[in-house]
């Protein structure tokens, strides 16, 4: 084999190698976008906002940290499913209500109201919140979440997504 053809051959081989890398790259990219896109798409999906009925204001007059469970219909992937939630409702007078989410701001366990101590206690990692939902002990980084509410025609509603 002369050095000239040898040169030509190694040039050709270098081209082949680049070609293989290029084609692998093109196909991988063309696949990665739709595959990863489809997999992470739920993150960007926005739920439909709705107001859920928590009860008649008249019946909630003067309540303090009253546990209310409610269900609402929502789309869960390809099914319309009933979801259940639990909240604590307090009447602040003048027709305004505070509705605390029971979800601990640490890692999502459901807090319980301790009537004797007047505190919310998380059963998981020892998080404690005061009456106003502020953290007084344990690892939770934020106060309990206050849910958006409204009163309309004598009915208390909480906003759900």
């Amino acid at each position, binding site marked *: 084999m002369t050095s000239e053809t040898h040169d030509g051959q190694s040039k050709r*081989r270098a081209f*082949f*190698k680049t*070609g*293989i890398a290029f*084609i*692998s790259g*093109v*196909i991988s990219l*063309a*696949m990665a*976008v*739709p*595959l990863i*896109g*489809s*997999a992470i*798409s739920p993150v960007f999906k926005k739920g439909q906002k709705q107001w859920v009925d928590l009860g008649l204001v008249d019946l909630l007059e003067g309540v303090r940290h009253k546990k209310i469970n409610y269900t609402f219909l929502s789309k869960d*992937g*390809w*099914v319309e499913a009933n979801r259940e939630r639990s909240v604590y409702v307090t009447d602040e007078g003048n027709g305004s209500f505070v509705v605390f989410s029971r979800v601990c701001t640490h890692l999502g366990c459901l807090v319980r109201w301790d009537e004797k101590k007047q505190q919310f206690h998380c059963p998981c990692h020892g998080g404690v919140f005061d009456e106003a939902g502020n953290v007084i002990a344990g690892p939770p980084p934020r106060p309990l979440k206050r849910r958006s509410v409204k009163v309309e025609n004598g009915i208390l509603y909480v906003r759900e997504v």
Partner: protein
Amino acid sequence: MRRRIAAFFESRLPLRDVANHLKKPLPKHINWLFSLGSMATFLLILQAVTGAFLALYYSPSPDHAYDAVNYISQEVPFGGFVRGLHHWGSSALVILVFLHLLRVVLYGSYKAPRELTWIVGVILFLVVLGFGFTGYLLPWDQKAYWATMVGVEIAGTVPLVGNFVANILRGGEEVGAVTLTRFYTLHTIWLPWLVFMLVGLHLLFVRYYGSAGLPQNRPEEMQGGKPFYPDQLFEDAVAILVLFIVLAAAAIFVPVPLEGLADPTDASYDPRPEWYFLFLFQLLKYFEGPLEVIGTVVLPTVAIVLLLLLPFLDKRERVPLRKRPVALTVTSISVLAIVTLTILGGRSPKLETSLETPVEQAESSSNGADQSEDTIQEEDSEDTAVFDFN
């Protein structure tokens, strides 16, 4: 840095040996048909990857499967594309594996010492068909339900053990929830494990015995060609890219069929299998009464056994195709028969839908109650008869 990382791995793994192995020269005479195997391997990987992502949104239950598949097609971003690739990819895989097999037959590549490569290859072909059969039940549409019904009944015609086998496949007497989870498990766990073990074995044999090349290679030419890497792999890559572009175009522009929800009572539906089983569908029409078992069991079994034993039945020296008139004739007739049966199966006329009485519901009078009053009475009396019988 890059060099140090490379050195770390090279001192611990036989990477150079592997690299040298990939550079091993191929036989001198070879052509583009030798890319078919690489193309099939690529498709298998594509099916595995798209399948793994489709599974994120699938639910193998008759209550959910159809809605989930619809959700993938309609609502998941890129879902229709991924499903399209998986759907059209499955058809392409069947075609490519078949062409690959045909190439091996026509070039006599199955002959000694490559019998084991061939046998594993034939089993792989059957596994690919198994993937097809278990896969198209999953959307739980009409085609899925009815084709599976008929397919399992075919297994049911095996003498003595047929019913037993059919019940195992279905997980009971009828195609239902248990069948769906079974087929899903087979499709996504059992068969993938099997196929990757078999492909591994197949590739190991291919590398161990080397490519067979064209029959005209003289012994001294068997290692006298271009290296697998990068020369052959580049050609394979180009072929794979073309294949990928065609499939992606199909996934984008050709909608994947999804028929109505599976309805076991809908007798107006004409069940048809996926196109690659149409030849079998058509074949079954020619064997009537007690001969039925010839079409459902005997012929397929004989064909599979003959294929598996091919290297042991034809032990003559490898020679170019033009010197193998018998092989050429038998192969041509077989291919022609399969193609003809497939076309006939695809064209086979559907039954007059008027033979099926419209569904009557108490509230609705829109289906022409008058016209089929007689038939309804007949049906009623049939129902009564059934009750009497019970």
